[in-house]
């Protein structure tokens, strides 16, 4: 437990440093500083901090999306995202939340551009958050990817289950 808490402090402290750096114009490879700030807020709205774990901001999901788009080979992936993001860039957080809520209405079958953008940023956020240290260890308490010694996890059917 103590170790976990120490890790938590280290991670959040590291995130704060990274965020400070991220707000400098030179740190992003694709987003403008204004776009980055909007993406940072949107990802946190999608996966916010709660009593269990920090959210997308601390997990630096916006940075993940920035480098993902910078590295994606198809120009259309970048232009689609940038276009979809446009209404959110110069908005207040309250306006962003309103836009996001509206765009999330028919997420199973997105048809309009803003509905499609919601799916897009939600999928990027899921991918970035749940492959991060915070997502895997703090939020989901993932126990695997470790050498097990002694008794293995799980159960075997007894004769009654045969």
């Amino acid at each position, binding site marked *: 437990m103590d170790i976990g808490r120490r890790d938590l402090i280290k991670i959040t402290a590291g995130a704060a440093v990274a965020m400070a750096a991220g707000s400098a114009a030179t740190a992003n490879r694709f987003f403008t500083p204004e776009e980055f700030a909007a993406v940072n807020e949107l990802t946190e709205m*999608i*996966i916010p901090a709660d009593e269990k774990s920090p959210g997308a901001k601390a997990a630096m999901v916006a940075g993940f999306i920035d480098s993902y788009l910078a590295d994606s080979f198809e120009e259309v992936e970048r232009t689609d995202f940038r276009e979809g993001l446009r209404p959110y860039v110069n908005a207040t957080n309250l306006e962003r939340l309103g836009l996001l809520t509206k765009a999330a209405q028919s997420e199973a079958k997105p048809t309009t551009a803003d509905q499609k953008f919601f799916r897009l940023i939600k999928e990027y956020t899921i991918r*970035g958050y749940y492959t991060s240290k915070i997502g*895997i260890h703090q939020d989901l308490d993932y126990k695997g990817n470790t050498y097990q010694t002694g008794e293995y996890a799980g159960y*075997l059917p007894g004769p009654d289950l045969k």
Partner: protein
Amino acid sequence: MPQSHEPNLNPDLKKTYDAIVVGSGAAGGMAAHVLTSHGLDVLLLEAGKKLPIERELKSMQWPYDHPRRGDMPRDDHALTLNEYTIRPRPYAQGLRYKHVYSYVQGWSGADYSKNIVVDEKDNPYTGEPYAWVRARTLGGKTAIWGRLALRLSDVDFKAAERDGFGEVWPISYKDIEPYYDRVDDYLGISGLKEGLPYLPDSRFQRPNKLTISEMMFRDKLKPMGRLITPYRAGVTTDGLKHNKYRSKCFGRGACSRRAGGCDIHAAFDSPTGLIYPAMDTGHLTLRTNATVSEVTVDSKTGKASGVSFIDSETGKTYQAKAKTVVLGASTLESARLLLLSKSRQYPNGLANSSGHVGHNFCEHIMGPGVTGIAKDRIGKPKTLDDGRPGGFYLPRFRNLDSKQAGFIRGYGFEGGAGSSMFPHHAYQTPGFGKDFKQTVREKQGAFMSMGAFGEVLPRYENYVDIDPDIKDRWGVPALRFHIKFGDNELNMAKDMADQAREMFEQAGIEVLNVDREVLTPGWSIHELGTSRMGTDPKKSVLNEFQQSHDVKNLFIVDGSSHVSASCQNPTWTIMALAWRSCDHLADQLKKGEL
């Protein structure tokens, strides 16, 4: 003193080897093992390189420790399902990427497998849409295989007698059973005895355990007369005293979250399981970077005299001579090689007097499956659920005792339940914000999924031949595909999806999604049947010992020889048959009959 296991790039090509083995995967590796164990002098040729595989796989790396979280570099590209379906062949033609790779499972083209699977730009093919995953490296596809190790039974070998379609195998279960046993003992297999006549038990090491929700599912399936059993994995769970290159499994659970592969070699792979021990006998010469382009023939005797191969780095061509030639290049590459080996004596290609080489292609159809949530597991404390080489296998239940309407043969499911590193259900969890995050977290340990693998019938009309125009990077003519699923497969796929839903519903599992889409042919990576065995040389290419009817000293020991696909994964059967055939080869060679 153990020898070095480095390849010999300058082997003695003046001498005549007892056998040349082409390909170093499950089939070629097994041939090398068995033939050297008989004291034969063997030259093993592999088209790819020997990779530093442990470094390549990075089995224990966390996603956040990789600069692109496991994705390939910017100029590289993995073909997706969609591209396999819609792109004109050859797939890589016109794509701007520096390298274009065959799809392999993993997160959208994993960085960990790009040196294992082939670059499509170097290895084009044409014809109907087909997802042809090839691994040109020492060990072939065993470097990343899915590890499910199942036996076939007489329900499969004699399927044609039961339903009238196709041909029966020239062997029955009792012929192959002792060889399945040997493969089990030599390589290690994990599983639970169930006593099913249509899915015979192996000589199992300790089984992988089931998770709580899998146990519940097993119990709920019982009234339907169906069963899930712990994944029968070609993995040594207790260790192998006779093999110092392989560790026992430590349940790290990294096996299926990327391309596969096991850097401690608890999962079988051909190099550590078969080839290194064969090299230690002193009878095996390993030449990598050797792309075989032709099986050469002695024009006086009509027998195979050896092979021509091209060094994949320098492009130089070499000849190697042997008393026997054993092909284990994979179902499709072996067919390509036979069709390319034309001579005055064999104008239709080698071993092809029947005209059946390249035909009767069969495999497994896949795609349909189901995901769901085991409701009583929601919100429970997290446990370690994926620390094992696989989840469960749900064996075939169709066309066993009763006849199913709409299709013959059957299918099985592979699946698993519980927490995994990545919460796949998050994509299907609606909304955003605190509720969304909490739902993903609470349902993480309750997630369950399974997908089906079904038998594709071997039809003469499903075949491959040589493209008249397109050549690969080394100037070898490319393979052309004429392969399509028929009504039997498509009707079966509908039933897979319906039954997947029904079984989850019966078990009280909340269904998240039912996948009904059939994947492009080839996707299962279980290609079989292009040089089938049989007793009639007019209707088959090989006899029961995978020996060519036409050319007595030519053997084809990979999946080419399978008469039908069954619905069980083929690797263990490929190795059992190869062992049996190579015993026969050694015996015949010693008697001077080859």
